[in-house]
């Protein structure tokens, strides 16, 4: 992935994202779903049947991410009062990847109808999970493992946030160097 944008598939190329237009709008939301605000008519040629492509991409990425997370969860079961390594690992890895993909897709690559749904909404969204983390915290609290619960919540948030920061910075540093 860490290559110049020129060697990416030219078939999807519509225009180089211009940070002064709708790209900043997408960035402002930070929402990694592909339902970015539709550009005004005429600003960008409509991609052929983008919705069907988006749907297939979200489904495929989500299926793959979920399979990986479920395999880890089944392969490494843990007691309620043990550190939930499978959930912790997939969440931090998914955060790192999402920061990388989204920053690169928004700021480096031409607009594409399916890459963000596939890699961001699908793969990273399916790989990471919020609900399992909350249930794990509730189980720790039920077992009166207060310190573990607080430590797990704090470590997940701190590491997840840091993962986004680092992967975003990596993409931007590459961009500056190529310029």
């Amino acid at each position, binding site marked *: 992935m860490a290559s110049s944008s020129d060697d990416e598939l030219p078939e999807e190329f519509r225009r180089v994202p211009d940070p002064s237009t709708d790209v900043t709008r997408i*960035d*402002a*939301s*930070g*929402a*990694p*779903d*592909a*339902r970015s*605000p539709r550009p005004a008519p005429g600003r960008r040629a409509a991609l052929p049947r983008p919705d069907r492509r*988006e749907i297939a991409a*979200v*489904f*495929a*990425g*989500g*299926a*793959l*991410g*979920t*399979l990986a*997370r*479920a395999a880890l*969860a*089944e392969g490494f079961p843990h007691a309620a009062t043990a550190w939930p390594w499978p959930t912790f690992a997939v*969440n931090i890895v*998914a*955060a790192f*990847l*999402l*920061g990388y993909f*989204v920053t690169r897709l928004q700021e480096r690559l031409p607009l594409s109808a399916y890459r963000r*749904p596939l890699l*961001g*909404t*699908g793969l*990273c*969204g*399916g*790989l*990471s*999970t*919020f*609900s*399992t*983390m*909350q*249930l794990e*915290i*509730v*189980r720790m*609290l039920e077992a009166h493992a207060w310190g573990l619960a607080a430590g797990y*919540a704090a470590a*997940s*948030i701190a590491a*997840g*946030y840091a*993962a*986004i*920061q680092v992967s975003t910075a990596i993409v931007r540093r590459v961009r500056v160097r190529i310029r």
Partner: protein
Amino acid sequence: MNVIVWAAVVLIGGAGSLLRFYADGLVSSVAGRDFPLGTMVINVSGAVVLGLLSGLALTSSQSLLLGTAAVGSYTTFSTWMLETQRLTEERQYRKAALNIVVSLALGIAAAALGRLIGQQL
């Protein structure tokens, strides 16, 4: 754990991700994109359902398919972190802090409440 169960994990994971995709689009179109409310609604609603499932006496396959695959793929940690980090990049520190604290507090409360309800059923 046979092949059929794992094939179902794949299909359900894709479906759960699609549900998140649509739910986020729906909430965002109603509430706007100034605050990442879509992800918060998804995560808290998923937490209550997973809590409820955890209170039921499910077999390991049922738990894998309904909990890990369906609800797990519907909710997302990575988007929650990305949206928070992007808010701080824009110096929207109050919104970023709110996004963390409210999601966490509501998420834990939702999972606990769902678990309580599930245990009563």
